[in-house]
């Protein structure tokens, strides 16, 4: 019976947490589609969707219903299994990143100490990178299995883009990790919350800028949305997809956007830290909820930034994209790393 000797309450607690986080991310992804349309409209002096419900608030439901009702088409010449696997992988990898993010400090319920984080592993950031590097398989497999030249080119573009920018992203974080000395996301947040310690953006502005640019590229967002360049590739890697399989790809993209916003907020903007407030003076439950709200606000700002940039900056050409990634961002990130290392050494002396 050793197989069943778990801390069952812990298991239930984690299950509830996972269910909450997954459903919250799905709802946020839904409303990101709405926000995208609304922000685009406002930036272009239009009112945007306003028919379904007050201010068009029910529009995501209508869009979802539309996707579900569409005819499901699997091309005859496609590789059926991989064709279905593609969107599943995209969705899976998008959701998996949630596991290591600290959503708040901790709750004290029924005499239990509940961390608002699914798993605090000591390689948190690396885990995120690992999952993100898996994300490209969803695009590649889907694009290849469609048996369509446009999809294939889009898949190859997507893959090479993600691989190129992952390097710069990782290098930009190394300087930050030198400062924090830990890979665990919760430790990084706790350090930023400590009195007398500012948010990491103050110490690593260049690192943040590089990370931000790479996050845009990793999420396939404009100005780096080469895999979905409508005017060159028709529609990109999900051209042959219809119905909810297409919906999965679109959803995965929005969830990726949400997760990368959360990670930027966590690494550089103090995560669930509320500025100018000492959380330890509050009731832990209140502090946790307020902290979660603060994180949410920061995330909303970043999501808005994603959309704002999308409707401002035009798309890069493919060679410009590679040039920026390999010849500008990676050397910059390396220089940032060396300078940070030198400053740390100098301050320690």
């Amino acid at each position: 019976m050793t197989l069943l000797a778990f801390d069952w309450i812990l298991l239930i607690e984690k299950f509830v947490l996972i269910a909450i986080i997954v459903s919250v991310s799905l709802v946020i992804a839904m409303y990101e589609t709405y926000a995208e349309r609304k922000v685009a409209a406002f930036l272009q002096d239009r009112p945007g969707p306003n028919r379904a419900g007050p201010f068009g608030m029910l529009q995501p439901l209508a869009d979802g219903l539309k996707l579900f009702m569409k005819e499901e088409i699997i091309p005859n010449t496609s590789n059926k299994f991989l064709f279905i696997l593609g969107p599943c992988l995209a969705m899976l990898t998008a959701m998996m990143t949630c596991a290591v993010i600290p959503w708040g400090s901790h709750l004290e319920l029924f005499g239990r100490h509940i961390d608002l984080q699914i798993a605090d592993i000591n390689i948190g950031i690396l885990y995120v990178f690992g999952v993100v590097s898996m994300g490209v398989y969803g695009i590649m497999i889907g694009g290849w299995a469609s048996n369509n030249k446009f999809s294939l080119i889009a898949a190859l573009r997507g893959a090479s883009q993600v691989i190129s920018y992952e390097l710069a992203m990782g290098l930009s974080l190394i300087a930050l990790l030198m400062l924090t000395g830990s890979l665990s996301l919760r430790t990084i947040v706790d350090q930023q919350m400590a009195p007398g310690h500012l948010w990491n953006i103050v110490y690593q502005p260049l690192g943040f800028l590089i990370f931000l640019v790479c996050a845009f590229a990793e999420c396939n967002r404009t100005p780096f949305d080469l895999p979905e360049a409508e005017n060159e590739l028709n529609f990109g890697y999900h051209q042959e997809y219809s119905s909810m399989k297409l919906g999965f790809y679109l959803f995965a993209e929005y969830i990726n956007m949400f997760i990368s916003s959360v990670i930027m907020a966590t690494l550089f903007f103090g995560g669930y830290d509320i500025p100018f407030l000492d959380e330890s003076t509050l009731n832990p439950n209140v502090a946790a909820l307020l902290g979660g709200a603060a994180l949410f606000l920061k995330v909303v700002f970043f999501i808005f930034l994603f959309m704002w940039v999308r409707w401002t900056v035009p798309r890069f050409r493919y060679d410009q994209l590679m040039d920026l990634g390999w010849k500008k961002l990676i050397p910059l990130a390396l220089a940032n790393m060396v300078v940070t290392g030198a400053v740390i050494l100098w301050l320690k002396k």
Partner: protein
Amino acid sequence: MQALTNRGKEVERKPMSFWESLYLPGIFKGMAITFSHLFKKKPTIHYPEQKREFSPVFRGLHVLNRDEEGRENCTACGLCAVACPAEAITMEGAERMPGEENLYREEKYAAKYEINMLRCIFCGLCEEACPKDAIYLSETFAPSDFNRKGFIYKKEDLLIPDKNTDPEGYAKARGSKK
């Protein structure tokens, strides 16, 4: 070459300065511009609830007029058809029989009167050519249809409802024109 206007601008091809080649200032400037649009007044007219005012010279669908007693004005003289540059109007005249004086004002009337709305260019020349004030361009426009036949408007479609028996239909066909 002589410039047509003095608004033309010479294309600058000098290499970018360091500040420009960073792109970031340019991007921030662009983002400031798009952000300012967030607070601009939206010019959208929410169609079914709000409607744009027609301009005073708007020319829409034709109506065939009736006089004060509800009698048709048209005498099928054919001047409108002659004036029509798009040759959209066809008609057939008929003689008024005794007892029909309350239907038609003159001794001759149009038994058949058709306007092909796909040909019509809504120029309003028919309106000007008519000696009997029988045809007017209203302030309504042709609804969409699935086939071409639907755009050939028969006399029944064109004739304005009688002001005395059907005031609602009359107002609708007349549109908002004064």
